[in-house]
């Protein structure tokens, strides 16, 4: 029995409003939910595993509610859904988009429903998975190909009007966002300020912004039997420079200790690049990736500091938040080394 007494949005004893709404959305005669289990919840919203019959056909879905408190740069569930849907339509391997609603009268919170995908996502397990380790870079290649499909979505996109065009170098937009977030952090960070100045001075132009996932990394995709089954977590999607996702994926901070496998701790970066270039109309500029890895380190440092700030001034007495905030110097070290390697 669970000791978690937090209130849940979805009430398994009152599923009629959701069933009726789903039947209308899916154009079905009947939708009958046979099981609903909560997978996790709290500050990041809730995930429910749902088993349903749609006109008698069994379906397995995941219902995700809106996060109670989300980062300013992240999307709500509905917008996240439309990003995922655009990627799905472009042929990327993502959970099947089923339905979305901002109407709080159905289950008490906005939500989206996607198809359940098999496998697991935990980064620490992924970089030790023997099937992945012995695949000769196959998973990294697959992740490269699916990323190229996501990047094949260009502005304005379908149902993506809520995404703002960068209007300038997307790297400069990132620097501005990081500075705005850094201003919310009580502890001054001179090293990070130095890194941001360097990123600003060296910001590359981007001729054609694309749909960037924004958090494309090990830990955010599902793998089953060594094979990619779906890309998760679309809340940081934006129009941006395609190299942002590549730099984020390869950044040392997302290799989960498997530093010698430069593509997310799961394979050689060449395999990721090859997969990407085989699928993309526009080949990667590999020389740009080190810049975006510096930016990735800075970006993760800012996120870590924001998490730590929830402990320092936000009144959330969580040891995990405090220790996450303390990870910032690792990223600052990474970024300063990256800058030095690029000639300062």
């Amino acid at each position, binding site marked *: 029995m669970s000791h978690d007494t937090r209130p849940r949005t979805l009430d398994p004893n009152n599923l009629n409003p959701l069933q009726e709404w789903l039947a209308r959305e899916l154009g079905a005669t009947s939708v009958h939910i046979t099981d609903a289990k909560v997978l996790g919840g709290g500050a990041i919203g809730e995930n429910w595993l749902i088993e349903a019959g749609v006109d008698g056909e069994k379906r397995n879905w995941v219902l995700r509610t809106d996060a109670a408190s989300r980062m300013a740069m992240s999307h709500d569930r509905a917008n996240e859904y439309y990003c995922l849907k655009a990627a799905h339509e472009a042929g990327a391997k993502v959970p099947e988009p089923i339905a979305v609603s901002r109407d709080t009268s159905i289950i008490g919170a906005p939500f989206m429903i996607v198809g359940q995908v098999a496998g697991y996502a935990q980064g620490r397990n992924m970089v030790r998975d023997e099937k992945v380790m012995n695949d000769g870079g196959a998973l990294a290649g697959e992740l490269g190909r699916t990323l190229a499909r996501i990047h094949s979505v260009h502005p304005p996109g379908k149902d993506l009007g809520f995404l703002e065009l960068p209007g300038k170098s997307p790297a400069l937009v990132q620097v501005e966002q990081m500075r705005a977030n850094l201003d919310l952090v009580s502890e001054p960070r*001179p090293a990070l300020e130095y890194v941001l100045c360097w990123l600003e001075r060296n910001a590359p132009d981007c001729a054609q912004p694309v749909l960037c996932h924004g958090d494309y990394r090990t830990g955010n995709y599902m793998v089953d039997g060594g094979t990619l089954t779906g890309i998760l977590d679309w809340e940081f999607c934006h129009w941006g420079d395609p190299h942002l996702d590549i730099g984020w994926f390869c950044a040392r901070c997302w290799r989960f200790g498997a530093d010698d496998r430069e593509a997310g701790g799961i394979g050689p970066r060449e395999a990721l690049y090859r997969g990407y270039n085989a699928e993309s109309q526009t080949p990667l500029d590999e020389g740009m990736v080190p810049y975006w890895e510096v930016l990735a380190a800075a970006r993760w440092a800012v996120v870590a500091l924001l998490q730590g700030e929830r402990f320092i001034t936000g009144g959330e007495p969580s040891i995990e938040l405090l220790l996450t905030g*303390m990870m910032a110097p690792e990223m600052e070290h990474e970024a300063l080394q990256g*800058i*030095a390697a690029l000639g300062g």
Partner: protein
Amino acid sequence: MDGPAQKARVFLDIARRTYSDEIAPGLAKEKRYVGAMVASALGVARRRLEHADPAARLLENLGASDMKGLAKSIRSGNVSDETHERLADELMTYIEAELAITKPKFLERRKKS
């Protein structure tokens, strides 16, 4: 080291040793991660007492009076590679001194790689 710091060290050392010897081995699997975080926090507190404040040295070497002002000056460009030739090196030294307190294993691993 002054008296209060010495007393704090004694308390932290015995708390960490008791935790490692008597509590950590019996922790349920799902609590081991939290346990590791507790041990880590105690270690940071201990090293924080042991090491000189990395910020003080940075400020002295760059001729700045406080970290907030330094961060602001770097953002505005008043402190830069042009005004301080060794700025990047000083910042790296500062970060490494911080890491020696917060995550010494990170530096050891990076030196090996």
